């Protein structure tokens, strides 16, 4: 018989090893799933994980696309990880992402068609501000009225979606678009365009910002007092209070930071890959980023890797769909497995597996 014994402190080895193990177990379980669907499991796994990066046919296009797809996920997830460490649960990054995009686009449309180097920086500020302001609603409601930030931030996503639809159909609608919803293509408006910085790399300002955010978060969490407070508040709230952490201020900081980063992600997406605001501009980045944050262990470097991995499963998943005829749902199940196995394997870092029966006391 086996029994589980709680470790005095989480195993460092297993904390680092479980994500890798989770990926491997997902590949095996996913392979079984694909095989039962009548597809070659090895081919499917290769198409998802290998071909986007190394096949001659796809790689030159999908490698840059990997950055495009992962950039916003990483940027949002890094912001969320601060709050999640401090037990501040911002579930509404999707909404902050939308509002950031709207604010950034509004600035671009306000200046259209004037030239000016200052337009893009202003859009960046507006995007960050929009996301921050949207996150301040749950922050203030929580600190003032003790509402639950999980519910408020989540429900504000739906409000943001309605606002997005209203803007795409009304104030921001392209006057030259023949009455169809959606804004002008601002990625074709030079001073506002979030262009590829180096051709064919997929590297745009949003991806650069995501990398900067990873470094910034790493320094902050490990070398700075504020990062210590964030970690302390999550692990030992009472001790944090004795250490002089003001819980209210921490809530405002965590929500504000994740809101601003989500807003930035939205703004970069609207000015770059999406190019415009449309009714269904939001493609779920804000929600997927929650998975990325946990998959990355709330650690900046982990999030970077998790974001890239998640992006890879999207892009590879599409290739698998189109070459093998795998249903989209199978790919989604596969992505879900990844989180499932990661959380399940967490057991190993917190517990030791010991042979023998439970001791009677």
């Amino acid at each position: 018989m086996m029994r589980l014994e709680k470790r005095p402190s989480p195993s460092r080895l297993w904390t680092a090893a479980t994500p890798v193990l989770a990926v491997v177990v997902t590949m095996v379980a996913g392979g079984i799933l694909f095989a039962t669907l009548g597809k070659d499991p090895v081919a499917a796994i290769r198409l998802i994980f290998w071909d986007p990066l190394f096949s001659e046919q796809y790689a030159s296009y999908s490698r840059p696309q990997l950055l495009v797809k992962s950039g916003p996920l990483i940027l949002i997830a890094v912001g969320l990880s601060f709050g999640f460490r401090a037990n501040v649960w911002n579930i509404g990054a999707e909404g902050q992402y939308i509002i950031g995009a709207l604010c950034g686009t509004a600035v671009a449309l306000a200046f259209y068609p004037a030239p000016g180097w200052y337009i893009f920086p202003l859009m960046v500020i507006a995007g960050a501000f929009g996301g921050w302001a949207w996150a301040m609603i749950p922050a203030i409601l929580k600190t003032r009225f003790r509402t639950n930030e999980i519910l408020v931030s989540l429900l504000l996503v739906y409000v943001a979606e309605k606002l997005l639809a209203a803007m795409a159909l009304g104030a921001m609608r392209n006057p030259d678009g023949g009455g169809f919803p959606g804004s002008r293509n601002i990625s074709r408006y030079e001073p506002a365009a979030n262009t590829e910085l180096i051709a064919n790399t997929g590297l745009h300002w949003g991806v650069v910002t995501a990398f900067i955010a990873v470094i910034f978060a790493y320094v902050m969490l490990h070398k700075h007092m504020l990062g210590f407070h964030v970690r302390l508040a999550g692990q030992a709230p009472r001790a944090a209070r004795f250490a002089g952490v003001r819980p209210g201020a921490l809530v405002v900081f965590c929500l504000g930071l994740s809101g601003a980063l989500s807003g930035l992600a939205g703004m970069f997406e609207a000015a770059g890959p999406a190019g415009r605001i449309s009714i269904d501009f939001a493609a779920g980045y804000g929600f997927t980023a929650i998975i990325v944050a946990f998959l990355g262990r709330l650690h900046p470097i982990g999030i970077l890797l998790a974001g890239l991995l998640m992006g890879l499963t999207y892009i590879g998943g599409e290739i698998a769909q189109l070459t093998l005829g795998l249903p989209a749902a199978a790919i989604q199940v596969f992505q879900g497995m990844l989180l499932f196995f990661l959380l399940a394997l967490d057991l190993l870092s917190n517990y030791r597996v010991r042979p023998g029966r439970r001791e009677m006391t």
Partner: protein
Amino acid sequence: MKHARLLTGALMALALAAPAAAQDDPVKVGFIYVGPVGDFGWTHEHDLARQAVEEEYGDAVETSFVESVPEGPDAERVMTQMALSGTDLIFATSFGYGPAVNNVAERFPDVAFEHATGYQQDHPNVSLYNARFYQGRAVIGHIAGHMTETSTIGYIASFPIPEVIRGINAAFIHAREVNPDVEFRIVWAYSWFDPAQEASAAEALIEQGADILMQHTDSTAPMSIAEDRGLYAFGQASNMIDFGPNAQLTAIIDNWAPYYIERVGEVMDGTWEAGNVWTGIGDGTVAFADFSDAIPEEVRESAAALRDRIAAGDYHPFTGPINRRDGSEWLAEGEVATDEALLAMDFYVEGITSELPE
């Protein structure tokens, strides 16, 4: 030495010539869907047409599809990957794919693109195709006007784009024609496929007194609710009789197969050229599920007559006098709407009480 070189040279020339000889390679056709193939509505019909293409051409064609692709950068990536994988012809089956279709078409001038219900045609390899669904909506409006007892018809709309507004207007005009008391209650789902939201919209409409549901969204949820509540509904895009054996009065069926087969054939012959077609009942693109027995005999007959007159081109569903919602004149007595006016329609006709979302 020299001979060996000559030999390798000849071999290389042969190797180079080989692809040109391989004319028998199947034509690769890619489909990109906005919903799952199992929506039993819009995407389902496109996928049936894809299967019809496979059946028609057998080994000469190879089709692939990617489902549930959001409209935006994801669509662009999927189509680029299709083009990279050697696809010759891509059917993009949702309105919102327009910008992505044109961006990808610019980079792959040798790939043919077919965009459903769109309007952007920036490159010579982008073709547009659409169906005159409003013709079908006129017929179901006629039936609904006769069948409603509360004189209230619930309409679950997706996005306020001309396509959808046109459908509401066509249905309303023909419901009013046979029943002057008819009112439309309209709920906007802001989604093409969201069963949960469509279901709650259906419930809300029933609360407001609607006894007949129409939908311009793609799931079968409203049909199932109508069935549960013992009310009537019309299937959208596909025959939804399995989800509402008692509820379904008829369904507008989008039959894309003839067009897809024709266009794939043209790519095979090398005669494909970008076009812009808008076909309707007369061409078989817009078809109907069997009229339910719940519809009185004479209404079934008058609806069939209306359908046949539209098919034959004897009657246009938008024939004046028709006023805009604000009372201003749109079409004078006997005037018929132009296609341009229909394609840009951004107003309700007179009599619809609710406001068009702005």
